[in-house]
């Protein structure tokens, strides 16, 4: 009788362990995703500053600057789904990259103290965002492993936990450089 109770207690304990570890992993993923959100917001906050600094110099990129301001307004307005957030973030990243390349054509701007400081801050935020993405991918991998590997996979299917997607680099960035087309130019 008491033997049966002990076995039952051990099984119960085991189930609780599995359950808790899954919850922990899921929360870790959400936690890191939250950090990415905070960092993205930090970057969005820099955009008005960037625009006001560069617009007096950059006459030809007026269109881009208006566009990025509009995107920022959309991003901070809230009520976006996670997928939309990621999508918008990709677009903003690309546009910011474009602006930074265009800066090369404006030596006065490049020497502007304000701009230099801003560039440093942006570099830092970008680096932090990339770190947060890597952390997110690591925690998603950890979570996915738990969802698919024994013995937690039993528990996961009971809790209807599904695999999550890792962050992927934008399609454009991933494409290999076509060397041949470079030479044909």
């Amino acid at each position, binding site marked *: 009788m008491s033997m049966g109770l002990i076995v039952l207690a051990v099984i119960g304990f085991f189930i609780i362990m599995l359950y808790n570890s899954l919850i922990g992993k899921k929360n870790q993923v959400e936690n*890191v995703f939250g950090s990415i959100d905070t960092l993205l917001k930090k970057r969005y906050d820099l955009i008005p500053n960037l625009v006001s600094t560069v617009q007096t110099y950059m006459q030809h990129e007026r269109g881009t600057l208006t566009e990025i301001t509009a995107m920022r307004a959309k991003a901070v307005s809230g009520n976006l789904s996670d997928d939309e957030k990621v999508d918008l973030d990709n677009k903003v990243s690309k546009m910011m990259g474009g602006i930074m390349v265009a800066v090369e054509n404006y030596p006065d701007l490049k020497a502007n103290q304000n701009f230099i400081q801003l*560039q*440093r801050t942006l*570099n830092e935020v970008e680096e932090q965002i990339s*770190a947060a993405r*890597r*952390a997110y991918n*690591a925690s998603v991998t950890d979570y996915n492993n738990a969802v698919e590997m024994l013995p937690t996979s039993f528990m996961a299917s009971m809790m209807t936990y599904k695999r999550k997607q890792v962050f992927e680099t934008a399609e454009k960035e991933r494409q290999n450089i076509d060397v041949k087309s470079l030479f044909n130019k």
Partner: protein
Amino acid sequence: MRSLDELKNFYDTILYPELNVLEAHRIKARNKILIAAAIILPVALFVLMYIAKNASGNSLFFVGMIVFFVLGGIYHFATKEYVQNFKTGIIEKLVKFIDQNLEYSRNNHISQTAFMNSKIFNHNPDRFNGDDYVKGKIGQTNLEFSELHAKYITRDSKGRTQEHTIFKGLFFIADFNKKFNGKTIILPDTAERIFGQLGTMLQSMNKFRGQLIRLEDPEFERMFAVYGDDQIEARYILSTSLMKRITDFKRRTSRTIYLSFVGSKIYIAVSCLKDLFEPRVFRTMLDFTPIKEYFEDLQMAVSIVEELNLNTRIWTKE
């Protein structure tokens, strides 16, 4: 970065004349030791034989210890002047040769506070000493390093003390080029190498160090285990390029290395069994090989700044 050819040239023109003078000091010191040993050892042997007949093993051990310490003391005093001259004559010049901005001080070392601040070693040392302290600025990066030997002492039930080494080798501190708040510690990965997957599990249970941080560079993961208190910050510090640079550094030095990032500084401990930057007493110093070794050890420390790209200041930290 100085090349080997430059060093050879420097050796021929500057160091060789110095070494010639030092050689006379060396021979004098060596002779003193040999004479002292020639007197003490026969006497000691005689006493030991006498005791062996009449007394217990314990006093045999006791006399052995006395002889050992007396010889050690004589060695120390006989070579003191020679070692001093060697350090100011050779090591200091080598340091200046590597970079004019570096200052050398032979008796100083990294402080115990700094050593403990690194959080690499948890054990509080009972004995802490070192020498050959170098300090300076390479580009925009402040750095300092010295040789260190930290030990702790245990006592067994019979009251005998025993010394255990916590760390022996070169300890390096530099300004890190990114701002951060928490701590990140990189230790040699022994558990994973021996136990594989199980090792990783054991590591993640080591809550004492903080969270285990699993990174995506498989080679880095094989060599090191990373602990920290912030998953994102650790990755902010350990960018993919820095991980690559650390693995390259580790492979090139092929020594056990520990790293940590605390309070906007990077700490690196490179362990080494032999004493660094010490002159030879029983063999001639008029040789390029030992000089090359001193140079390489110094260069290894100084080159960390370049190898880990610490002068790249594109982030908010100036």
